[in-house]
């Protein structure tokens, strides 16, 4: 899984039918210490994450389809949690 921060949303009306009804968030990838790594990904929201929130993103197709509960979805990245705190060993 990936640590990320929600930095936007993407709207696509013409899309693969498997995407219908899913909200898509633009997520900046974060390093463990919370600094952006410079890359981003677009993930389907399964945790009602809002803008600016730190989130946990599952970036694997099989797991994504299990979380969304439907086979055959062309979805690989899903926001599965909202992170309250990250504790790192010194």
């Amino acid at each position: 899984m990936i640590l990320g921060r929600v930095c936007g949303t993407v709207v696509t009306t013409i899309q693969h039918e498997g995407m219908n009804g899913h909200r898509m968030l633009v997520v900046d990838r974060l390093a463990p210490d919370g600094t952006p790594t410079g890359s981003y990904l677009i993930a389907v929201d399964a945790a009602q994450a809002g803008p600016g929130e730190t989130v946990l993103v599952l970036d694997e197709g099989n797991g994504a389809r299990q979380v969304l509960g439907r086979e055959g979805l062309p979805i690989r990245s899903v926001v599965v949690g909202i992170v309250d705190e990250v504790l790192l060993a010194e």
Partner: protein
Amino acid sequence: MQLGRVIGTMVVSVTTPGMEGVPLLWVQPLSKLNEPVGEPFVCADGTRMAGPGEIVTWVASREAALTLNPSYVPVDHAVVGLVDDTHIHQEDGT
């Protein structure tokens, strides 16, 4: 999944079974702010609606093949949707 811009199309006369009639598009990957990043690649277009110049969302790996029907096809990048709007929150929360 990431953003991309369609910069061209490709016509293939002989193709593997299951890929007949699937449009192939040249896509330039974009940053979240729509700036070109990295090398263009060829995407299969399951929506069959994306035209040159349009901004699309694309996905890689097995999920790319799942956008097509039949889905057991040798495709590693595919267009998932045509972007109407990308709203990026600025650092100051607007």
